[in-house]
């Protein structure tokens, strides 16, 4: 038993962080036009070359053959760097396509798997606007909020029953929406019995909980990044002749933020292991993880604004991007309320 990342796992983390800091400095995001994507098609292929999209996919399907733990570790770094959720959709999309390639239109899905893994296919996230109205299966209906539809090929939609890929060309009328997150484009659409390109049921591959876990990893990245920025700023910025970090109000905000990071990181590791090994408590732990992640990432990002004072409220610093991204990720793969309900409904975990 050892809950810390192994040396090999730590290398994946370090390499990812190094690459992301070098290639996707957040300062760039401050220069983008509203709705302009930080990840171009070209970027996506470079990311794919690193093996990130197939990192947790079995080698037999063209993946790298690591597991969920490595995927989760990588997504913490992607969250910290505020890379867009379409990468999460690519990772899950590759699994749908790969599974789809074993039945139905096998050749086509095999080809799609390849294009996703090579980064030549972009997948937008479609979130049911109310889960009661959405129906996701071989045929898809309902109202959805769609992120990064711009130059995407597919939309990925997912609920507790399963996950589907829908060709973006099948969606007739997208209504553009001005997104709270200026680095993401958004739109809504109503699907009325659209045929999915591929669908995979939860019983076959539990992408809902996998997605929720990876989304929690992205949120941990936000919680940690905003803590780090706050601590750095509190050491540097002086008021009344002292660094503001020496004032208890600020120091205690930071301490509470640190506990949230520690709690969430521990829970992410724990849930990753449990879900990966198909443990009885795996889903309970994922619900726990996502519920905490939504709550903690928002608290940390929002507190970071307060710690940064007036500057934190401007778009000259990047703090606001974390606040906004946390709102987007809060809704992906089940909101806080839903995960809390689900975890309370479960029997006592061992």
């Amino acid at each position, binding site marked *: 038993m050892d809950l810390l990342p192994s040396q090999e796992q730590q290398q994946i983390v370090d390499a990812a962080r190094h690459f992301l800091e070098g290639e996707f400095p957040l300062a760039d995001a401050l220069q983008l036009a509203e709705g302009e994507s930080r990840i171009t098609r070209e970027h996506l292929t470079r990311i794919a070359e690193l093996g990130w999209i197939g990192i947790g996919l079995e080698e037999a399907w063209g993946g790298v053959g690591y597991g969920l733990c490595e995927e989760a570790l990588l997504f913490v770094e992607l969250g910290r760097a505020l890379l867009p959720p379409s990468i999460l959709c690519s990772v899950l999309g590759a699994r749908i396509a790969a599974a789809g390639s074993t039945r139905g239109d096998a050749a086509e899905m095999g080809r799609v798997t390849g294009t996703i893994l090579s980064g030549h296919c972009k997948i937008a996230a479609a979130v049911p606007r109310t889960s009661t109205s959405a129906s996701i299966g071989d045929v898809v209906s309902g109202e959805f909020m769609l992120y990064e539809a711009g130059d995407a090929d597919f939309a990925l939609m997912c609920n507790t029953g399963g996950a589907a890929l829908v060709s973006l060309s099948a969606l007739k009328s997208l209504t553009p929406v001005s997104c*709270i997150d200026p680095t993401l484009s958004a739109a809504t659409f109503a699907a009325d019995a659209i045929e999915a390109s591929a669908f995979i049921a939860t019983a076959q591959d539990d992408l809902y909980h996998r997605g929720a876990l990876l989304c929690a990893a992205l949120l941990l990245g936000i919680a940690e990044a905003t803590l780090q920025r706050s601590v750095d700023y509190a050491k540097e910025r002086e008021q009344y002749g002292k660094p503001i970090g020496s004032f208890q109000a600020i120091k205690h905000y930071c301490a509470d933020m640190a506990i949230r990071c520690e709690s969430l990181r521990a829970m992410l590791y724990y849930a990753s292991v449990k879900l990966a090994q198909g443990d009885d408590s795996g889903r309970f732990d994922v619900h726990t993880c996502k519920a905490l992640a939504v709550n903690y990432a928002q608290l940390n990002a929002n507190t970071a604004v307060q710690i940064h004072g007036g500057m*934190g409220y401007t*778009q000259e610093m990047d703090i606001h991007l974390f606040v906004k991204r946390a709102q987007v990720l809060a809704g992906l793969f089940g909101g806080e309320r839903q995960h809390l309900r689900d975890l309370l409904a479960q029997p006592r975990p061992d």
Partner: protein
Amino acid sequence: MNLDFSPEQVEFRERVRDWLHDNVPAEKRPPDGAEGRAFDLAWQQTLYRGGWAGINWPKEYGGQGLDTFQQLIFLMEYSRCGAPGDHYRFNGLNLAGPTIIACGDEAQKATYLPPILKGEVIWCQGFSEPGAGSDLASLKTRAVIEGDEMIVTGSKIWTSWARFADWQQLLVRTDPDAPRHQGITWVINRMDNPGMDIRPIRDMAGGTDLHEVFYDQVRIPLQNVVGGLNNGWKVSMAQLSFERGTAFMPSQIETQNTIEALIELAKTRRLEDGRYAIEDDHIAYQLATLRAEIRSLLAMTLLGISRNERLAMPGPEGSMLKLFQSELYKRITALALDILGPDRTALDELAGRWPRAFLGSFANTLGGGTSEVMRNIIGERCLGLPR
């Protein structure tokens, strides 16, 4: 302890109500910018013509010379009928104007007060500096006296509406050798004065109302000094007590509109599980708690006015109102986003005003003194705790 209005006050309220009913513009205020300025000035002109400008300002400068209760009655009716917010007019009406009334000389009053009420000018503030946000006393913008002028060099930040303002109330350091709270002067500056550079700052809600203002050898006549050279700390403290006293009264009253609108939203929005949001006990209790706290905010406002009326000067309790209200507003908008579910990420009609209000709410616990500074003030000035 009574909440009764006298017959005269009731009659006054009727007059206010009738006039507002007939005169509040039907169209919405245009977004910020030159059109916003034009709208604000036009509305102020309408108020002036109607005899409603400067309710509690002295008559000789165009005000109505009425008391705080009449001002309160006016503001309650004003807020209730959805009349336009202060916007660009805020500074002149609530900060610069009252400060000049309190500390200005006769010439200054005669020169600067009437144009505010007549809707001819917009004012802005130049207090905070890039290095000194909460710590106002450490400001560094220098003013060297030369003959009957001061020559100002330095920079200010968080100046609202600077691009669209005519005048600025500016704090500068006139005596660099004096202890930090001394040697500061409060002075009136023209915004088209040569040597100034005004740079808008984009805030997280997308607005560009805030600015950084740079001063390079800007000349200001000494007759523009209010309250005497090197006396600016005292003048600005008087002002902060207005800011924390009555200046936010309209927005306190407004907060009630906001929570009622949120309750309406909760009655019509469905959650992920298909129920109306208000059917979720967790949401219902939060709404009820906010409604209760906002009701008490109104009561606090009335208690504060009653106290001011007896003591003739706003007390430090104004800091409590400021802190309480700004934190309440943050909780309201955060709850709104929770109610909206996945739609919360839309900045347009889909989610109404709420996501933008949520982003804007972060300013409330920072501007005009951070919540942490307000807690210090309450602890030290209201409760007498050691610094």
